């Protein structure tokens, strides 16, 4: 019989909360985490709003000396990992260290450190660059630092699949456990790209909302007046375990992760193809991987970025996969509240899918005042709704034409 894989721990920092409980309460209340950019002076940027962490104290998770040598994305990852491992009650020691691994993805890695040290390079010369630059910049150092802190000596990796990175990471970790290469994994995604360079870069692509005077209304997935995504920071990390392993140690199980699909558009570096057939194939692949009947799915946490193309095409892709059943689905975009955490999105959104299964509440898509033409699913506009859900999907799609989808289901013995 195939090995089942379950979620036993979760941790997050994101624009609406610094823990899973805080985040879940905010999302179910429809609270926006978007505000004016404070991490740098955005005076010259077209976009002056973002989803930043609020009241996050890095010293709760990282010593002062260590803080200076690592980028924010690593700090956030260490915070998420600590919450997740505590939540799971997982003890990593000589007996299991080689069977515990880490896959944490990031879209851009330490972009703030690159910016800062590049300024040093330009102004003071190459001899003045911090020796901690490279290990603060490399995207895989989130996973690396987690493995070092907990002594997790099993498989380690870092998918750098743009906005799908968190989902790719969880998918990879799921398969490593399912196929017997590990018993437990830290898995998720993280990002800290609210920086002058990253915002300017996305602005140059005309990808970001410029609704600067109404930050809380700026992220409007599926709405007629959406004008791009709002960049956010943070992410989420989960502890995945083989069910046998979780049972043996008497762990509490949140839900089962049972499917993963990944496809390429092979179309364009940033734009999805009409109808987003790559996304449709990714959802189909994820469902097929666990033999799940599409009609068993009750909720989809949409990629739902609020870019003009994504929301219409994602809707078309969902309809292609689910047919008539798409009318019965609840499809919400929590990016309407958190903004888009790029590689971190898949980490938090997997946690959202799990919480929906556990609590029977679907968080809303806020700011959806008037659905756009072609956006005619139940996006759970404005208010959360109670709904028993047996199985849920988490969709994430990234630049480079990567589509990654996870399937979760309610845990039953």
């Amino acid at each position, binding site marked *: 019989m195939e090995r089942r894989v379950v979620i036993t721990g979760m941790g997050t920092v994101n624009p609406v909360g610094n823990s899973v409980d805080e985040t879940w309460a905010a999302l179910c209340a429809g609270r926006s985490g978007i505000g004016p950019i404070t991490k740098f002076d955005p005076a010259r940027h077209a976009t002056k709003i973002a989803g930043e962490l609020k009241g996050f104290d890095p010293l709760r998770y990282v010593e*002062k*000396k260590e803080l200076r040598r690592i980028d924010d994305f690593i700090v956030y990852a260490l915070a998420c990992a600590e919450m997740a491992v505590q939540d799971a009650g997982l003890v990593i020691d000589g007996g299991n260290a080689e069977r515990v691994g880490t896959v944490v993805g990031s879209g851009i890695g330490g972009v703030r450190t690159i910016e800062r040290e590049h300024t040093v390079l330009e102004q003071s010369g190459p001899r*003045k660059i911090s*020796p*901690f630059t490279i*290990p603060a910049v490399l995207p895989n150092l989130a996973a690396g630092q987690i493995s070092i802190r907990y002594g997790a000596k099993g498989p380690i990796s870092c998918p750098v699949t743009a906005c799908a990175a968190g989902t790719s990471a969880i998918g990879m970790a799921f398969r490593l456990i399912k196929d017997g290469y590990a018993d437990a994994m830290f898995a998720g995604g993280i990002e800290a790209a609210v920086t002058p360079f990253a915002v300017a870069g996305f602005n140059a692509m005309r990808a970001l909302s410029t609704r600067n005077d109404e930050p809380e209304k700026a992220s409007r997935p599926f709405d007629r007046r959406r004008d791009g995504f709002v960049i956010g920071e943070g992410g989420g990390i989960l502890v995945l375990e083989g069910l046998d392993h979780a049972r043996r140690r008497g762990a509490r199980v949140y839900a089962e992760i049972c499917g993963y699909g990944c496809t390429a558009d092979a179309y364009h570096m940033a734009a999805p193809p009409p109808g987003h057939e790559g996304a449709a194939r990714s959802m189909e692949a994820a469902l097929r991987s666990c033999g799940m009947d599409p009609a068993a799915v009750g909720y989809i946490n949409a990629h739902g970025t609020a870019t003009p193309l994504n929301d219409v095409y994602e809707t078309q892709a969902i309809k292609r996969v689910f047919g008539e059943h798409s009318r019965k689905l609840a499809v919400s975009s929590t990016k309407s509240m958190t903004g888009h955490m790029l590689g971190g999105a898949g980490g938090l959104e997997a946690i959202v899918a799990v919480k929906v299964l556990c609590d029977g509440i679907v968080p809303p898509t806020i700011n959806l005042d008037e659905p756009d033409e072609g956006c005619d699913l139940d996006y759970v506009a404005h208010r959360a709704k109670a709904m028993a859900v047996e199985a849920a999907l988490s969709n994430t799609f990234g630049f480079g034409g990567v589509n990654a989808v996870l399937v979760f289901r309610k845990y039953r013995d």
Partner: protein
Amino acid sequence: MSIEEKVIEIIVEQLDVTREECVPEASFIEDLGADSLDLVELIMAMEENFGIEISDEELQKIRTIQDAVNYIKKKKGLAG
């Protein structure tokens, strides 16, 4: 501020150690918990503060606080 005091101030800041730990014979790596990258950063801070340049070759010989103080004094003396 004497060179000794300034060196200790830099070490306390860079390595996040207490003033009491900074005895002259304290080794950066064995006693003050520095790794090779900390050491590079520490030397960069000293270069900055004392307006000197320390080559990688010379860096190898600086193991304790006293080594650093002696080196800087010598360098300053030669420079002055």
